[in-house]
């Protein structure tokens, strides 16, 4: 018998001749937490899809040994039955169904005749919730009542219910707050003690460092190295990931800051489904010319809603009084926002950022296409020149501007979306989680670009859930909690603890 629970050997997977994985090994012992690191496009997700039979046996080369025997799974069901459960970055819950119904989806406990045995499912669901230290969750309530953190744990409960021996977590904390992340990491440690092994994919290296026993790094589809976590630090991991040393994660540059240039007053947004609830509650703030204003807060605090209201795309009822360059402006749609010099790079790149089937070039010129047309007819020559300029400026890696953008890595997609929103020459640029799901190298380039832009006199509002990023980049930090403005700090000697305490407001005992 092998000492390994999972032993993947020499995995090769190619897409139309391009090798996404080129001979990767991955070994996991029972009860071990392995951190899988690599830049975007390195092949982490592909490897996990091979393991969970999203790519069935036979569509890749190499061998997978599971509990000493070779695993030849053709369906996800087979890998799940073996005890391998993957939790995707985008949660796979049905918001309208109850917590218990979600946990038992596909594995419902039945009464004779195919009826749902709710009492048994509720009981088991409550046990699972207790196990995950969430006894307060009402398992009969629809999932949408609970926030991202809870939902992540509900996914884990679902996996545990399937008797998972190996959990694969793909970016599990990308939409969690600090406190929620802590809870999740605790649970992972707990599971480890119970003998459940875990492969964790994350861009947040401090989390990897906090919870993993071993770390495996892949780069460009190849295995770079596997080392015990003890004795490594995050800088070494980064070096392994990128193959070069990045000394300064936040390339802060001095830039002049001018007078107040943009103001939002009394922004209030009502919840779409429940208009008595205020998602944003009477927030006012000012932005100076050439300033980077960081907006921090827990997920769901109302930051994205605030940005949407300013950009004229909040789906529910809202009020916002906007002043730009001394004049009051009225913004009733993204179109009017863009025309008046306000641009937004949205948080959810897939849903709101890219037009997946169109070329990289068409995506880049989307907002300004009319400038390259006369009587509605596009001057392809002129358009292409601009596209080439943008691609070169942002160093977007694509074989051709005609290629559909969905084939690009997250970082390159983000750069394209950024280019798109820069072309209308905005005066105020709102970036909502600009580096989410973006690899270290591209992050660095995005920060560089931000400083370049503010030096040209642009003002930037950057919403971010990553406090080191907020503190590393911003000139000033707004803190939002439960829809209210909880703090407005000049970023001099500001600490993560101060921001977090402000964000948590009343419930500051959680911050401890």
């Amino acid at each position, binding site marked *: 018998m092998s000492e390994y629970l999972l032993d993947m050997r020499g995995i090769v997977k190619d897409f*139309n001749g391009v090798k996404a994985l080129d001979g990767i090994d991955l070994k996991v012992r029972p009860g071990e937490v392995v951190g899988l690191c690599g830049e975007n496009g390195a092949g982490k997700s592909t490897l996990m899809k091979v393991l969970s039979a999203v790519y069935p046996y036979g569509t890749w080369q190499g061998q997978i040994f599971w509990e000493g025997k070779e695993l030849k799974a053709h369906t996800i069901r087979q890998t799940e039955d073996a005890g391998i459960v993957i939790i995707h970055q985008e949660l796979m819950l049905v918001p309208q169904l109850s917590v218990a119904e979600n946990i038992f989806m596909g594995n419902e406990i039945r009464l004779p005749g195919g009826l749902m045995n709710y009492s048994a499912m509720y009981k088991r669901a409550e046990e699972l919730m207790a196990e995950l230290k969430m006894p307060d969750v009402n398992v009969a309530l629809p999932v949408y009542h609970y926030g991202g953190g809870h939902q992540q744990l509900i996914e884990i409960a679902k996996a545990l219910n399937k008797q998972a021996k190996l959990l694969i977590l793909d970016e599990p904390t990308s939409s969690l707050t600090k406190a929620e992340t802590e809870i999740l990491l605790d649970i992972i440690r707990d599971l480890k003690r119970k003998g459940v092994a875990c492969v964790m994919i994350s861009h947040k290296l401090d989390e990897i460092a906090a919870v993993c026993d071993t770390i495996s790094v892949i780069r460009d589809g190849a295995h770079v190295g596997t080392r015990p976590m003890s004795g490594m630090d995050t800088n070494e991991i980064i070096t392994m990931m990128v193959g070069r040393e990045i000394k300064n994660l936040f390339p802060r540059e001095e830039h002049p800051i001018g007078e107040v240039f943009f103001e939002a007053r009394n922004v209030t947004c009502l919840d779409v489904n429940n208009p008595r609830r205020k998602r944003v509650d009477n927030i006012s703030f000012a932005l100076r010319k050439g300033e980077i204003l960081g907006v921090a807060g827990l997920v769901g605090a109302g930051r994205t809603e605030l940005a949407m209201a300013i950009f004229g795309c909040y789906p529910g009822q809202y009020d916002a009084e906007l002043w730009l360059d001394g004049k009051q402006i009225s913004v009733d749609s*993204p*179109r009017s926002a863009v025309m008046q010099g306000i641009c937004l790079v*949205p948080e959810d790149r897939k*849903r*709101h950022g890219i*037009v997946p089937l169109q070329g990289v070039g068409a995506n880049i010129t989307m907002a300004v296409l*009319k400038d390259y*047309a006369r009587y509605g007819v*596009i001057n392809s020559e002129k358009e292409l020149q601009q596209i080439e300029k943008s691609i070169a400026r942002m160093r977007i890696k694509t074989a051709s501007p005609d290629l559909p953008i969905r084939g690009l890595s997250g970082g390159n997609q983000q750069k394209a979306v950024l280019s798109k929103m820069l072309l209308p020459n905005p005066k105020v640029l709102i970036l909502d989680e600009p580096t989410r799901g973006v690899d270290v190298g591209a992050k660095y380039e995005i920060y560089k670009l931000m400083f370049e832009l503010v030096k040209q006199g642009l003002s930037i509002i950057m919403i971010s859930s990553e406090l080191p990023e907020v503190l590393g980049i911003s000139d000033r930090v707004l803190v939002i909690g439960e829809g209210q403005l909880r703090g407005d700090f000049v970023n001099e000697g500001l600490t993560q603890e101060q921001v977090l305490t402000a964000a948590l407001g009343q419930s500051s005992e959680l911050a401890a």
Partner: protein
Amino acid sequence: MAIGTHNLKRFFSQYKILALLFAIAVIWLFFGQLTDGAFLTPRNFSNLLRQMAITGMLASGMVFIIISGEIDLSVGASLGLLGGVAAIMDYTYHFPVPVTILTVIVLGVGIGLFNGYWVAYLRVPSFIVSLAGFLAFRGLLLGLTKGTTVPLESPALVMIGQAYLPTMFGNLLGLGLFALMAVLTFRTRSGRAQHGLAVSPLWQDMVKLGVIGAVIVGFVYTLNQYEGIPVPVLVTLVILGIFSFLAKQTVFGRRIYSVGSNLEATRLSGVNVRMVKMLVFGLMGLMCAFAGLTTTARLAAGSPSAGTLGELDAIASCFIGGASSRGGVGTVYGALIGALIMASLDNGMSMIGVESFWQMIVKGAILLLAVWIDVISGAGSER
């Protein structure tokens, strides 16, 4: 094996047009065989193409609706209504022909914009809006004509549906068309080369041009064997040219694809997506007007049942021609080739005496099959 099917899929998605042309060839040979060659005579081709022209006009509009992620079930009924209005204006009220044509066109665009307004601005799903139109427009037509067929009076109006181009004119047209294609091909090549973009090998473009030339020669020659190019076919070809240009080279065309591929991202880029959607329906209305006029002219009468199930043919043509049921994908020429396939089946089955209920079953099955092929060969498998 897995790799084999994969390559086959790739081949088909890349050269879908070849697969479609192949399908047409098979269908024609099949019916040619069964009818002892009667299907393959110039006379029947002329017939076939005239039959196809009406579906083709509808499909040219419909393909944009489908690309933008919507559907329009009302086009058969609005075709009937607009054709009926033309007949009534001509026969009952003796309007001059240009006035009749212009009014019908304006009315058609109006109907389209009305549908589009409901879809884009009042946010009623297009399925429902057009289902309502499907009923209401047909009802309106029945009310206007009192259920009777209205004959046409003006020969000029009849010509729209029944006249042919003189042989000489047809030849010139074919020549001009080929010259245009050649110029476009070389302009694209030099344009791409200038920007360092991949240029397909010269022989490939030459073969392509050769095939296009052969098709044009065959087309013009065959039709000239009979009476010449029928006017509705000419109109359809002109629409093909204009709409292909619209799709590729204009802001509006680009917007249609991007609205269909990701509406939200397009809206957040500052595009007036509602306007785009409404205009797409307006364009559909314009095509209904053309199709309605052609139908009425061809029958030399406005019939209360004109255009019944026309929407089905148009929608099927689009899907057969490679439009995606998820939006964002499709071409005008694809839709027209789809229309040609549908018309060939119609025509061929009628010739060999297949009963009409069988024809309906076959067409329904083909619609289902076409969308299924889109689903399995499409990008959707990765999502």
